């Protein structure tokens, strides 16, 4: 969802005001950070299954 907003033509184009662009980045970083902790668990489980 955050990526979808970021890829919108008013976001990636860089035509928004600075504070709006700042919010696009902040929203994306929040999403990435939240997802990274989950993905870390997914990878950990996968590695454990592969390597034991």
């Amino acid at each position: 969802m955050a990526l979808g907003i970021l890829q919108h033509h008013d976001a990636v184009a860089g035509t928004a005001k600075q504070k709006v662009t700042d919010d696009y980045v902040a929203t994306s970083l929040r999403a990435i950070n939240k997802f990274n902790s989950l993905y870390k668990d997914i990878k950990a489980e996968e590695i454990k299954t592969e390597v034991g």
Partner: protein
Amino acid sequence: MANHYRTTNLLHTLGEDFQYTNSRMWYKNIDKLLKYINSKPEYGIKVIYSTPSVYIDAIQKEKATYPVKNDDFFPYADNANAFWTGYFTSRVALKGFVKDFSRFTQAVRKHISELKISNSSATVRGNTKQI
């Protein structure tokens, strides 16, 4: 309206920025509009839901001829004195970030899809809502 076009099949696109997220609400109302317009033979219009390929098929059957456009659409302007001339080059860090984020998302999406298909990850199973 058809007088202003080269074919009797006219394309009316649906969509807007950030607007069409609630499909149930939109289709319920568009259904009503289609039903109303089609119930009025005096309008001389038949409106249907369509697709690009259905539209192209329909106008090809009308054998309309079109002028050839050789120049391009740039620089884009959406208002008088409002040219978007910087939007491919400005905010390079943001553009780089979008590309990095997209690549990461795409890779992760494939990985998680595989895990879902093989049903091999308890972590994926336990977090279906968030994923």
